[in-house]
Each structure stands twice: as C-alpha cells, then as structure tokens.
C-alpha cells in the first residue's frame, strides 16, 4: 500500500485516484483491526488525502467538511461502477443477442454471459432463434368462421384450421426488416393457404391431398417471406382440421353412411350367394349320388334277376311243360292268397251283376263287415277279369 500511495500522482488523474484512495481509506480501519483512531491513519497517507478533500471542497464550494466530500465521492464512484456493471447480460441457450450501438446494429452474440457497453451507448435485444413459434389460423378464435372457411377450386366451401410452425432464421433481419413480423406471418399464412386451397378441389383436401396442400402453402409462405427478407423460416404448415362447413356436414356424413349402406348391401348379397350356392352344390352332389345309386341298384338288380332267370331257364329247358305249369300255378296261388276274390260265372247272365260296394273296399277299412266269402252274388258279371292270357 505504502509504495503505491507514495507513487500516486494526483496530477491530472487526481479525481479518480482520489476515489480509489478514499475507498482504501475507509477499508483500512477495519482491515487493520487495530481499533485505533480513524483520523490518524498513516503519515504517508494524510497529505494525499488532505489534498483530495481540499479539492473536493473547492469543487463543491467548500461546503461541508471532509466527511461530506468523501460521501459524495463514494456515491459517484458507486454509480459509475453500477453503470458499468449494467452492461452484463445473459443470452439464454435458445436466444441470440443483437447488440445495438446507438441504435445501429453492431454484432450478434451467442448464448452465455455477455457484456455490452452500458446504456445509452449500447443495448441488447434478445431474440429466441431456436424456439419454434406457432401461429394458429382458424379454430376456436372469435373470427373462426370467417378465418377458416375458404373457397376451393371447385367452387365449394371448406373449413380449414391450421397451424404454422416457424422460427427466426436471421435474428437481425427479423428485428429490422419487418414491422410486426408475427402479424405478418399470420396474414401471409392465411393468404397462402387460401391461394393453395383455391386451386385445389375439396375432396382431395379432405382426403388424399392434405400433405400436398400443406407443403404448397409452406412453400408459398416461405417464398413470400424470403422475398420480404423477413428472416423467418417456415418449418411446417399443419392442417389441424379440414372438412365441410357445419352447414353441410350432415350431407357429407350421409355420403359416408351411404357407402356403408352400399357395402352392407353387397355383404348381404354375398352372404346370400354363399349360402345358396353351397346349398345348390350340396343338392347337386345329392342328385348325382342318388342317380349313381340308382344305376348301381338297377344294374345289380338286373344282374341278380338275370342270374335267377338263367338258373331257372336252365332247369326249365329240361322239363318245359311241367315247369311252366308249376310256375303258373304257384304264382296264381300267391296272387290269389292275399287278394279278395269274387268268382262269378257270367255264362248265361242276362242282366248286369251288381256287386255290393263293400267288396271293393280295401281290407284295412272294412275290418269285420266284409267277410271274404261273398263268393256268389246275385246277378251275373258282365265280364270276368281273368289272367288267362298269361297262362297261354
């Protein structure tokens, strides 16, 4: 301390060095810890300090004593230090700092602790460059309908709500080129979307061409903003909702349900077809099986009968007359055994023979009252039903 004080030249730098001295002076009592009197500091210090206070006293018209002068000096020095320190600022990681020197762009600062010359010489404007900004058009806003309903290329009206995601690509341009850049983005977004929608048909926008519309609107926005040199980069245009306006929604929904209806009609028909066709196939198989069964049966039966005939024939050839007679009689026996019989001698009958109707009634119905013996009846049969031909 001492050598510094010794060397101190209060000449032209009197005031500032005096300020420093004074600070030292106030610190010293505490630092020494001696508890000695304040006034008698060091013998080497006093002359300098006295000279300073004298000067200060001169400056302020000699008012106040030494303590006042020192107080003023402290205040001034502190103010200067504070002023100088006000130049420190922090640029957040998402930001860029744009430093203006007397209003003129001077430099861009990256994130971190930075310093600019204190106001009013320099000042900083921080711009969120990496942050994505979002502008919504249409939707829940008060001006919703007017903002979101637009005309399509085929003369229909569509309701579109969309968002634009953008970011500041050039902080300086963003600050200096455009007034109200955020509003500009909203206006250009609406204009671009309307232009794109105006040359696209309604149906594709709702269904397939949505991505295409988004891309075209984005490109158009970007072109316009670039042309203005706005320093804004449009990241994405996202259609949140695109559909017919509420006035016609019912009709559009009906188209949906109509296609559902059509589909279910077709399904019904298919169900019917599957059932009926399969049933028919089953029936066809049955018919064929049945006829095959018939064929087999017919052939086998025939073969069986033929075999039987052949056997009998072989025996018949040995004794034709006897066999013939026997066959006839046996057959007649079997036939007549189970039948009801009326034997009528028609010879010499002049009037028709009337048979009682009971005779012709089937056995099952006339259980008792038709005994099997009404052989001879009154009258004569017109013609006997005989099987004599076969016996020939």
């Amino acid at each position, binding site marked *: 301390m001492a050598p510094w004080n010794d060397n101190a030249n209060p000449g032209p730098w009197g005031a500032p060095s005096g300020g420093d001295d004074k600070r030292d002076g106030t610190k010293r009592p505490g630092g020494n810890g001696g508890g000695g009197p304040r006034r008698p500091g060091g013998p080497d210090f006093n002359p300098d300090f006295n000279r300073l206070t004298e000067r200060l006293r001169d400056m302020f018209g000699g008012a106040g004593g030494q303590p006042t002068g020192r107080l003023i000096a402290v205040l001034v020095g502190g103010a200067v230090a504070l002023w100088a320190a006000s130049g420190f600022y922090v640029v957040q990681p998402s930001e860029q700092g744009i430093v203006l020197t007397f*209003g003129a762009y001077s430099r861009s600062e990256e994130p971190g602790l930075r310093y600019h010359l204190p106001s009013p010489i320099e000042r900083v404007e921080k711009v969120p460059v990496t942050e994505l900004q979002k502008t919504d058009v249409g939707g829940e806003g008060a001006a919703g309908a007017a903002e979101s309903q637009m005309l399509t290329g085929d003369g229909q009206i569509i309701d579109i709500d969309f968002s634009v995601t953008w970011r500041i690509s050039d902080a300086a341009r963003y600050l200096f080129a455009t007034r109200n850049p955020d509003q500009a983005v909203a206006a250009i977004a609406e204009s671009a979307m309307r232009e794109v929608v105006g040359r696209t048909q309604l149906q594709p926008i709702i269904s397939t061409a949505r991505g295409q519309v988004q891309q075209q609107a984005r490109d158009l926005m970007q072109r316009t903003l670039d042309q*203005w040199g706005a320093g804004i980069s449009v990241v994405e245009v996202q259609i949140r909702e695109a559909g017919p306006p509420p006035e016609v929604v019912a009709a559009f929904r*009906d188209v949906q349900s109509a296609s559902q209806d059509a589909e279910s009609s077709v399904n019904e*028909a298919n169900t019917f077809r599957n059932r*009926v066709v399969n049933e028919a196939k089953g029936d066809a198989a049955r018919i064929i099986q049945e006829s095959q069964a018939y064929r087999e049966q017919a052939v086998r039966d*025939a073969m069986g009968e*033929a075999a039987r005939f052949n056997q009998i024939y072989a025996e018949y050839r040995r004794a034709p007359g006897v066999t013939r007679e026997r066959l006839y009689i046996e057959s007649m026996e079997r036939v007549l055994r189970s*039948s009801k019989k009326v034997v009528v001698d028609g010879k010499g009958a002049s009037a028709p023979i009337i048979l009682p109707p009971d005779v012709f009634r089937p056995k099952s119905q006339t259980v008792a009252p038709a005994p099997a013996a009404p052989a001879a009846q009154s009258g004569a049969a017109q013609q006997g039903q005989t099987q004599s031909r076969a016996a020939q």
Partner: protein
Amino acid sequence: MNPRLVALGVAAVALLALVMQTLYVVDQRQQVIVVAFGDPVRVVNPPGRNEAGLHMKIPFVEQIIRLDRRNIAIESAEEEIITAGQERLMVNAFVRYRISDPLQFYRTLRNETTAADRIGRLLNSSLRQVLGSATDNDIISGRRGELMQQAKADMIRRAQSSKLGIQVIDVRIKRADLPNANREFVFRRMSTARQQEAAQLRAQGEQRKREIIAEANREVAVTLATAREQSGQIIGEGDAQRTRIFANSFGRDPSFAAFYRSMQAYESSFADGETTMVLSPDSAFFKYFERGPSAR
C-alpha cells in the same frame, strides 16, 4: 458558495440541453428527416444507406422527424367487389410497403396515419380495377397469383405517379369469399351434390346386391341342371345296362322269359292284398276247380 453552486448547476443543465439538442440516435429500424424551420434539409439512414447510430445536428435550429424504415403492412377492410362476370366477392387484401423516399413521403403524406389512409384507398382502387376485369373463378383459383402481381404493378404505378415516396413490396389477396347470401347457395349446392353422391352410392350398392343375387341364382340353377344332366346320364347308363343284361338273359327264350316275367309281375302287383278280384270260373286257374280231376 451558493451562487457558485447555482451557476455550476445552470451550466451543467445548459450543457446537457445543448448536447441533447446536438446529438441524436438513429435506430436501425428508423430513418430520420432533419428539418430546419419546417424545411427538410437532409435525410439520415434511408433505405439503401446504412447510417444508423449517433448523429449531430445544429442545435435548436434543426429538428428531426423519425420515420419507420421497415416493411409496413396495411390491410384493407373487407370490400365487395363486382367481378367481370357480375359476381360479387368479398375481398380483403393487404399491401406491404416501405418508405423508400422519406422526403417525398414527408412532403406528400406527412405521417403514417395519412399514409395508411391514402395507401389503403390506393390498394382498394387497384384491386377494383384488376379484379373487376377478372372472373370470380380467376380470382379464387386460376389466376390468383397473376392478379396479385397485376395489382402490385398497378399500385407501384399509382404510388409513383402520386409521388408517395413508398416502395410497394407486395400486394396479397388475403380472402376472396362469397357474400353471405351466395354462401347459402353454395351450401345448398354442396348439400345436393352430396345427396346425389349418397343416392348414387346406395343405388350402386343395391345394383351390386342384385347382380350378386342374380349371379348366385344362376349359379344355383346351372349347378342343379348340370347335376340333373349328369344324373340323367348316369340313370340312362344304368337303364341301358339293365336292358342289355335282361336282353342277353331273356333273349335266349323270349316266350319263356315273357311268361316268367309276367308271373313275377302278377305276384308283385297283387301282393298288397288290396285287390278284389272278380274271377270267372272258366279261367285256366280254375280248370280243375270246375271240371274236376279229369280235366286235361
């Protein structure tokens, strides 16, 4: 001591005032017209010159007027425009301009409020002229970009001839919509078109349904008929074989075969016992029955 302090104070204030009257800051976003007794003397930091920063002027004599140097928007109110095809459209557009010649701007328009008014009217008449000669179809879809370029060119021309001192950067149609009355028509048209589509879809579904059913019915009929055809074939085969077998067998003695077969037929025909036979005692069967054991 007091007078000295006062004097010092006065001097400081005077100095400060002098400094403030002399020095002025021009922001990057501004341009400044220096005016001496109401007369523009010079321009600082107009577009094209980079002069933002600290500047000096003659104190008390020169005054400064600050103008914006950036790109400024003016949006027109929504206006009804009648197109070439006599259709009405509600059009809303905006223009972006920049004060390119501050002196001219100052002389003609004085400040931004009047400028907004004047440029707004200019925008309106340009739109009317350009859009009035186009059809609504052109405006909405076909030639929107082109028409905006025309409106811009028209505005540039008018701004120049009126010496407004502005540069028109862009003219864009924001909205071009139908008036409310016409919107109702559009909605009705859209609805009927959808109804038509729905009816068509349903009818197509019905058509398809009937086609499928008819096809199914045909398939059923064909399947069954084919089966019957095959069946006939098979049955015929069976009958043919049967006939051949009998022919082969019975052909050896047709007379006996006929007798033998008749016997079988009689037996099976009358086997049910439901038959009442009225017989003549003359028949061969009753030969012995009538004539006794000597019958021959």
